[in-house]
Each structure stands twice: as C-alpha cells, then as structure tokens.
C-alpha cells in the first residue's frame, strides 16, 4: 500500500471516528500529557494497522479494538514525563475545547475512571451499543462471560446513579 493511500485512509478514519478515540482517552488518561501520550500511541497503532484492515469488520469495531488494546496496555506501563521541547517545538497533538458538558456525562466518566481496565472497556462498548457477540470477539472471551460482567456493571452503575441523583455525589 502506498503511503499517500495509507495517509488518506488514516485522515478519513480520524475525521469520521475521532469521537470514539476521545472517549477512550477520557476513560483511560486523566492529564493533558497522558492524553497526548495515549493518543499518540493509539494513532501510531491505527496507522500501522491500515494495511491489515480487510473490511471483515466495521471500521468502528476495528478502531475500538485497537484503541482499547493500546489503552489497556498503556495503563500497565510506567510513564515517563515527556520533555515538551522534544516534541515538535511544543506543538500539542490535541487540545481540549472549552465547551459546556452535561453534568451527568461528567459523572459517568468519573464512575468509569474508578473501574478496572477490563470493566472500563466493557462499559465503553456497552454504552456505544455493541452486541455481546461483538464484545466477545473484541475481548476474546465467551459471550456468556461478557453477559455476566455486563449484568454486574449495569447493576452497579444504576445503583450509583441513584445515589448521585439523591445526594449529588
């Protein structure tokens, strides 16, 4: 595959599916530096994966799988502080927009942040409407196992949301 072609696909994936990548960033990385670092790792892997994409799965499934794999593995590494001067003369890869967000969404992310890496992945996929079968393929575990975990996650989230609505915490 020519690099120009790869670049074209990469750009169109980023344009169309950047929302998906940002969700993973928000769930797994909590400072500007960490988000930049994780975003860079995911983008590099997405770029490398393009020649292997055979359209057997949807682009969203492909991207989610890559982003979650990298995010889980990234979470297990100890991160070194990156010298800002070493990165393109302090150019930032991503910057946060100053847009008002729904308070309930902020609460939801705060709850996701507390989960372990595996539950985080499942919650993101669940909230984005993936089926048990798709989750099972992406995670490499049995559908029944996905079902058990999802049932527990849903139950806990609903219970916590009751407390949030009642106490505001």
């Amino acid at each position, binding site marked *: 595959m020519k690099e120009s072609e790869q670049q074209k696909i990469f750009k169109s994936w980023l344009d169309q599916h950047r929302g998906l990548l940002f969700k993973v960033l928000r769930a797994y990385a909590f400072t500007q530096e960490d988000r930049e670092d994780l975003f*860079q790792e995911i983008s590099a892997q997405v770029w490398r994966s393009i020649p292997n994409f055979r359209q057997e799965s949807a682009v969203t499934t492909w991207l989610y799988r890559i982003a979650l794999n990298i995010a889980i593995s990234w979470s297990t590494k100890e991160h070194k502080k990156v010298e800002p001067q070493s990165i*393109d003369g302090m150019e930032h890869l991503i910057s946060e927009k100053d847009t008002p967000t729904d308070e*309930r969404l902020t609460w939801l992310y705060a709850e996701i942040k507390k989960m372990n890496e595996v539950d985080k992945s499942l919650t993101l996929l669940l909230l984005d409407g993936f089926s048990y079968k798709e989750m099972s393929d992406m995670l490499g575990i049995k559908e029944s196992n996905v079902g058990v975990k999802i049932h527990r996650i849903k139950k806990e989230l609903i219970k916590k949301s009751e407390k949030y609505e009642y106490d505001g915490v």
Partner: protein
Amino acid sequence: MEFEEMQKVWDKQSNEMLFVINENALHKRVKAKKKQANRIVNVTEIGLMIINTATAGILLADAIIDNEGPYDYAGVGIMLLTVVYLLFIRKKRKNQEDKFDRSILGELEHAISNTQSTIQIGKTMIYWYLLPIGIYIIINMIHNEASLSKWLLVAGAFILGNFLGNWEIRNCHIPRKRHLERLREKLME
C-alpha cells in the same frame, strides 16, 4: 438514572467535539513512532548479539596470543552460547507475533509473552554474561596476582551490575507482567 438514559447522555457527546486534533503534528509523530518501534527492538536484540560476538572475538584473540590454557577457550564458548540463546529468544518472539489473535485477550497474551522475553533477556545478561566474564576476569587476576584494591574494585563492579540488573527485573518487568496477568484473570473470571 436508568441505563437507557445513561446511553442517551453518552450518545450526545458523539456530536460534540471535545478535543481538537493538530493533524500535522500527529502525522509527523506517527511516522517517527513507526520507525522508533522497530529500531528499539532490533537495537536491543541485535546489539546484544553483536556485543557478545565481539567479546567472544576478543577473548579468542587473547586466548590465541597468550596460549595459556583451556579456560580462555571456555570463555569464548560461553559467550558464543549466549549469542545462540539470544538468537533463539528473538526467533521465538518473531514466530509468536502471528500466533496471537487480535482480540484484547490475544493482545494481552502477546504483551505477557513480550514481557517474559524481556525478563529472560535480562536474566541472560546477569547469569550468562556477567558470570562468564566475571569468572574470566577472576582467573586472570589470580594469574596476575592482582592487588587488593583491584579485587575490591572488580568485586564492587560485579555486585553493582548484578544488583542493578536484578533491580530492573524485579521493579519494572515482573510487576508489569503480574499486572498483565491480573488483567487476563479479570478478563477470564
């Protein structure tokens, strides 16, 4: 809040772009990253093999020039064995690259296997690199009746080398491997 409502809240963010991407900077970094990843793996593995082969060469030259006994040749043999062992680990790692499926569990298995390879290389460095070199130096020092200060210096260097090597394995690679294994358990439970 019911779960369906959470999903509605979640869906709303898909239309709101919370971040802006600097595409030029991203493109530059992705290309640099691609080159860097291959370079790091190759430099570590091939670099170690070159260093060990070169050391074996030096020991061999020394053994031929001095012609002092079989222990010099034993050092050469051990160094070459470490090269064969490193080649074996590299080949095993390369063969395993296509073995893992592309699910998250598959990637976790892959990461565990890579960390195991790093631990193995680290241990190889300590036991099969530091040890033969150490034995060789000690024999030479006995032969040359080295002074006490030289003995202390060499002993200190080996103790430090051994300590740092083990420290890296214990504090970086083994905890990472355990963390990955715990994740695998969480996924499977």
